[in-house]
């Protein structure tokens, strides 16, 4: 087992005025580990995700990330240039709404190739080849490479967004309700795809979802949030099979059985 975590979150709180966004969150994330953050709307899970991914400045606390050189850096004390570079190379962010994460008016190939060009790839043929490979991995046929995502279905857009994020071989991916708004059959396909990619690439991931089935399928570990607090945290199987807190028991007992 690897002895060093990839991410250390210590005492992260975010207040909106007197209202709590999230309060005193602590955890570590190891390479290859998938953490699910679950809770209902307004429980603070998206606030927490945004704080960790540096999209939102927390009121207090620190988020340290182990850079590729092995050194931990506090993400709120590195320059914006470094942070943005990190976000488009070593990190991925999959938005619930693919339109937020894609360029809707440029082709699928360019959407996937953008990160490569951003880090200095200047060979059209190679960029296109890599884009073709990645479209294949997310099950988009190669003949759609020059189509714009506007012409894609919701599920295809989401898969394209994933390819766009993974093309630079990130070590950490954030996902905000990655299957939200998709048909059930499309969801299943996407989940299976994400699960396979996460395993194959050994990615660490933080997945925000209100869907416990998604958490069960994707995550190793789970944090349950309520009113901005992490109320329960543990092995995903344990939290779902033996929930300890009243709210978690309510959540688990509210799942519809098919």
């Amino acid at each position, binding site marked *: 087992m690897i002895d060093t975590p990839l991410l250390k979150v210590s005492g992260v709180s975010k207040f909106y005025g007197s209202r709590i966004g999230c309060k005193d969150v602590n955890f570590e994330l190891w390479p290859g580990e998938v953490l699910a953050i679950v809770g209902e709307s307004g429980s603070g899970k998206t606030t927490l995700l945004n704080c960790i991914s540096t999209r939102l400045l927390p009121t207090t606390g620190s988020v340290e990330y182990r850079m590729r050189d092995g050194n931990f850096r506090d993400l709120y004390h590195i320059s914006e*240039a470094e942070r943005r570079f990190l976000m488009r190379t070593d990190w991925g962010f999959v938005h619930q709404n693919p339109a937020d994460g894609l360029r809707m008016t*440029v082709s699928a*190939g*360019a959407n996937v190739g953008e990160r490569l*060009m951003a880090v200095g790839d200047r060979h*059209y043929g190679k960029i296109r080849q890599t884009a073709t490979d990645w479209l294949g991995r997310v099950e988009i046929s190669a003949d759609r490479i020059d189509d714009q995502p506007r012409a894609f279905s919701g599920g295809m857009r989401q898969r394209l967004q994933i390819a766009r994020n993974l093309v630079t071989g990130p070590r950490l991916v954030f996902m905000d309700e990655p299957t939200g708004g998709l048909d059930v059959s499309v969801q299943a396909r996407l989940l299976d795809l994400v699960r396979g990619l996460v395993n194959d690439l050994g990615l660490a991931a933080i997945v925000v979802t209100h869907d416990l089935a998604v958490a069960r399928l994707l995550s190793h570990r789970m944090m349950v949030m309520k009113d901005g607090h992490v109320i329960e945290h543990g092995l995903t199987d344990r939290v779902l099979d033996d929930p300890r807190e009243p709210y978690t028991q309510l959540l688990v007992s509210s799942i519809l059985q098919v």
Partner: protein
Amino acid sequence: MTADLATYNFAYLDEQTKRMIRRAILKAIAIPGYQVPFASREMPMPYGWGTGGVQVTASIIGRQDVLKVIDQGADDTTNAVSIRAFFQKVADVAVTTHTKDATIIQTRHRIPEQKLTEDQVLVYQVPIPEPLRFLEPRETETRKMHALEEYGLMHVKLYEDIAQNGRISKTYAYPVKVDGRYVMDPSPTPKFDNPKMHMSDALQLFGAGREKRIYAVPPHTEVVSLDFEDYPFEIQTFEQDCALCGAHGVYLDEVVLDDRGGRMFVCSDTDHCEDRREHGHVGAMLAPNQEAAE
């Protein structure tokens, strides 16, 4: 009357405005390719008619200057004629159509064929100064991208060109990197002219009136057109020579002669063409023993 107007306030703008614009120009020269915001004034002509270039020219012109104004390479088109007349009226300066005689050349869409010297300033009229604009609509974001040198998006545009057309089809306003740092829109000049910007002896100033931006390429500055390793930047080439002066390797305009498909290609730089003809060069259409006469 004309002299009075020039005396009342030289070159139309009041002195404070000119100082403000000069400060912007100095900053622009100090940071090659960086777009400096300035408080663009209302000018007695509509936006899109070169109000940015006119304000830059008005701020740098002196009584001893000789002004040339070109539009699409020509001295005799409406825009060129009216701007030249404007400065004659408000600054009472000498004007010329000869590139070599001018100290300031205001231009829309072309760089003269004749090599410019370090005694000359080229002022470009710019409609949209932001090269990232059509890819990223947010000004806050494009500014950040410039600041952090995040220019991957520029290549996304070129990638799209190749994906759709098999080659980089952009022929004008072709993006360049200035002094190894800022990506810059060279205004809607044909990409044919891009190499002329590189290591130019003359100072190049760019003014965008509506967008309120000034930027500059100082003399002897590196200007590199963006491209891919396997799709390198190349300029347009023309099979024909100029029909009037026989010039080769210059930018040509296609002129339709009739509705039966007749056409000719002539120098877009009218001064260059006239100068060559004065020196005895003759193109196919003006050749004395022309079979076309039938």
